[in-house]
């Protein structure tokens, strides 16, 4: 089995194609670039990046809406202010990692939802840091 298959291009460098042609050269040739690949622009650590789907409106004030696709990088260390995915008592949850009175807590971006304080829960683990959310307008 080949694990390093063709879709593991890590550091792809945008290409300016320089070509030699016999006829009249196209004036656009020097500007030819590859298509924009969102993977390249949105994902810097492909091997630790995962996709998740949001359900509900607990993060609405942060611009994350129901059904949005979110991109999570597990390699990043969460810092206060980051939106993160945490595992709390056996469930995935999305919250903003916040700090108040020297205490870290997880804040919902919707007044209707309570904050999570770490000390009230036995089993909390930060799973990854949200780097993008993608919302469909259709």
């Amino acid at each position, binding site marked *: 089995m080949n694990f390093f298959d063709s879709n593991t291009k890590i550091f792809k460098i945008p290409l300016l194609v320089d070509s030699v042609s016999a006829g009249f050269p196209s004036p656009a040739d020097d500007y030819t670039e590859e298509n924009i690949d969102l993977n390249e622009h949105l994902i810097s650590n492909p091997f*630790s990046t995962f996709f*998740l*789907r949001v*359900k509900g409106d*607990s993060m609405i004030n942060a611009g994350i809406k129901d059904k949005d696709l979110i991109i999570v990088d597990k*390699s990043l*260390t969460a810092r206060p202010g980051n939106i993160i995915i945490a595992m709390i008592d056996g469930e*995935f949850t999305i919250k903003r990692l916040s700090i108040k009175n020297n205490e870290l807590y997880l804040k*919902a971006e919707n007044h209707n939802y309570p904050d999570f304080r770490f000390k009230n829960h036995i089993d909390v683990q930060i799973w990854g840091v949200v780097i993008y959310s993608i919302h469909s307008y259709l």
Partner: protein
Amino acid sequence: MKISSIDAIALIDANNFYASCEQTINPQLRNKPVVILSNNDGCIIARSPEARALKIKMGTPYFKVKERLNKLDVAVLSSNYSLYGDMSRRLMNLLKNYCEQIEIYSIDEAFISISRSNDKNLYPWARNLRSLIYQNLGIPITVGIGENKVRAKIANKLAKNIDYSAGIFDLANTRNENNYLKKINVDEIWGVGKQTSNWLQSKGIKNARELRDMEENEIIKKLGIVGKRLQLELKGHKCLPIEESKKSKKEIQVSRSFGTPVTKLEDLTQALATHAIKASEKMRSLNLQSSDIRVFARTSRYSSQSYQRSAHRKLTNATDDTNSILKIVVELSKEIFNPEYKFSKAGVLMQDLTNSEYLQQSVINYKSQKELKKSANLMRTIDSLNRRFNKNAITWAITKNPKSWMMNKNFLSHSSTTDIKQIPTIVK
């Protein structure tokens, strides 16, 4: 005895890989006993540490422990190879960044070569690697370090078995080497098979230390150069290199057990055709063509009437064309079918593989160049459509409506990392 070389080899092994993959992607499985079943939901092939603690054994047939697992509230899952394959690819690529050379040894194991800096202490590096892989993937790994592959394998075993090791052991940097080698039985040494192990034990050689110190001539007489190399590696010499690229494949096999036994020719043909399509696709992805196509079918190993048949066809010209291969496979399936038996497994083998780029130069072919080009284009189009949309966006009519012979996968988790329709949902 210490080797002066500054290089070291580490064997990286993901712990309880299949169960760890499921636990990292599904928070409900964290810290819970989890078992993974083999193809067809037959036997237990992986256990989370929590399931191990409950003394659930590897290889136990599921039906025998079904009730007990239920009572113990153990999560039972079918094997999800699209998830494990993707996590493996991620793991291996991450490891690549932390070593000089890598040899992927299996889905969850890799040998890597690293250089030992002046202070000789690789524990900080290994601790860092472990926490990095855990943070990136949520998968725990064990790091065994030695001067060579055989000793790295032993070190990995020690790292797993010694309580205070924290998943890391460096056999090239320890004061009590003899004590540690004594803990490894000869049958646990990499490269020692059952027969060799029996012979060694008959000679009174029980563990790695005794094998290392055994009379060299006696080993050579019985095991030849292979045995000598093994002993040299045990002593700390480097004999087996890291093989970064695997030699080209000798054959491609696609075979599966049936969900329920197959007794009709129609079902056998359909199953073999499905496997043949997969095998041809695989050949094309590896730029290979086959000139010897084999199919086989057999009854269950446990059935009273055991029966096994295979048939093959040699071709004048190698091919990777699904249409041509399907024609042959359909014919061959008639040859091996026997209505008196209940078949439990069948498969296809593509043998005599050659590189297709090289082959296209050949002028002599029973098909015209134009025809060949046309079929190659068609296959390329189908492959790219299936890659872009989903595995079976375009397939052959013969595989439509697969029925009873399909494998049982009653407890399959989602393709959480590879299919956008199946990614996990976060509620609230």
